[in-house]
């Protein structure tokens, strides 16, 4: 349903971007979006008392583990097989350890860092004690301060649901630059790409602030949108790679966020001979199906307009979407596997 809305959105208002959202929700803000004023007064250490810590852990267990695996996959870590080589990793904003645990399960040596003492003392850390010789390692520090590590030691850096707190109303740029500066310093030159899953308010300029800060430190920073299996909510990931100037192609499914997707990034990394994205098979298959559904919907809308039917909305079709639909119409008769591959290349062009 959500994808169908998005196809309609792309088709009817590709440049305004707001009309369908406003139409569907009125002025309602989606439930997951934080307000800027919440963030500005957020202090993880004051907020997470022991009860909130336990509640957070229980509420987020399944989704955090999924998000952590997806994040690690973007960092080129194999989450499905057991032959992943051991790498030294830092988990930024490790909280009660759910994301660090996901790293330990992939044979990584993980050190978690977090600002919240209660999160660092969560009972959850005990449960993961024996996953690897380093599991459960953690310390307290602030991501917006120089990270307390030697230079060039970590192979990998990842973060699940944390770095959006750096992008608060004032001083965001300074905090973000502190983090990108730390990353540049503590990672080895041949480090894996950095992946930071975060809840970014897209209109707040947080993505642009990360990109600008990262660029100054010699990183390429892209926004990757992914969806968890069977869940409608989009999840944003900042993907940082050393060197290179060319971003991955945008994905038509996430044109409203000007983002790429995990599939487009996977193909791009392969072409660039960059560390591969290690999507798990089930998720890749699901993503391909979602792209196909999106393409079919776009094509149906296109045909209805061509037949003279009016859509639910008065907005005229955008030229971009019409062009996409025309190209999709051209591959309708292809054999299934070739067609799916053509669908992906059209939606990622």
């Amino acid at each position, binding site marked *: 349903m959500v994808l169908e809305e998005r196809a309609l959105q792309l088709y009817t208002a590709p440049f305004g971007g707001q009309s369908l959202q406003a139409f569907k929700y009125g002025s309602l803000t989606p439930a997951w979006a934080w307000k800027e004023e919440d963030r500005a007064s957020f202090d993880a250490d004051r907020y997470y008392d022991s009860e909130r810590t336990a509640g957070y852990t229980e509420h987020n267990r399944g989704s955090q583990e999924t998000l952590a695996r997806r994040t690690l996959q973007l960092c080129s870590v194999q989450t499905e097989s057991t032959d992943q*080589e*051991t*790498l*030294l990793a830092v988990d930024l904003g490790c909280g009660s350890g759910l994301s660090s645990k996901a790293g330990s399960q992939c*044979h990584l*040596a993980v*050190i978690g860092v977090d*600002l919240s*003492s209660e999160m*660092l*003392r969560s009972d959850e850390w005990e449960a993961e004690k*024996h996953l*690897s*010789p*380093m599991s459960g*390692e*953690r*310390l*307290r*520090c*602030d991501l917006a*301060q*120089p*990270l*307390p*590590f*030697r230079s060039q*030691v*970590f192979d990998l850096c990842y973060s699940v649901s944390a770095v959006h707190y750096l992008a608060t109303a004032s001083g965001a740029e300074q905090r973000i630059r502190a983090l990108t500066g730390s990353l540049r310093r503590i990672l080895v030159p041949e480090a894996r790409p950095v992946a930071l899953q975060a809840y970014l308010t897209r209109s707040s300029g947080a993505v642009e602030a990360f990109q600008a800060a990262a660029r100054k430190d010699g990183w390429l920073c892209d926004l990757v949108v992914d969806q968890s299996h069977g869940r409608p909510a989009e999840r944003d990931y900042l993907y940082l790679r050393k060197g290179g100037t060319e971003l991955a192609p945008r994905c038509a499914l996430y044109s409203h966020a000007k983002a790429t997707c995990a599939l487009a990034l996977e193909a791009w990394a392969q072409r660039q001979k960059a560390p591969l994205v290690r999507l798990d098979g089930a998720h890749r298959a699901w993503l391909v199906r979602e792209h196909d559904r999106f393409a079919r919907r776009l094509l149906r809308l296109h045909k209805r307009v061509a037949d003279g039917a009016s859509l639910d909305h008065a907005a005229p079709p955008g030229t971009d979407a019409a062009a996409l639909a025309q190209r999709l119409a051209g591959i309708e008769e292809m054999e299934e596997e070739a067609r799916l591959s053509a669908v992906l290349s059209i939606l990622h062009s």
Partner: protein
Amino acid sequence: MRLMTHNVLQCNKKGVQNGFPLIIKATSMKYEETPFDKSFVSAMIPKIEYHALLKAVSEVQQCPNIAGMDKLGSLPVLPLAMPANPDEDEDFLRRLHTVLFDLSMLEGELVCPESGRVFPVNDGIPNMLLNDDEV
């Protein structure tokens, strides 16, 4: 905090040029055996500052209370220099594994060798948070 973690920790307070290695002043530690994993410990070798690890072991020996030490007997003795081919020296790798992963600092302080800044360790968790005027 395991000694592997200690080996990558550094004081990055404003103005400090050489905040490594942090001096270990432990009042309470524990020994807890973890399964030996050759590839895991081998992967850590390029990360280690070996002289700092030797210094850390000598500081750990000053700790009055290491729970579980009866199971270990005595701390493994590491050679003064890293062996030429450490990956092929299983005896060395086992000692290194014990030192890096099986000894944890529970309570005490980490002290910056240059500035003397003290970072407390409680419940095994170092507090590396700096004050605003130290950044």
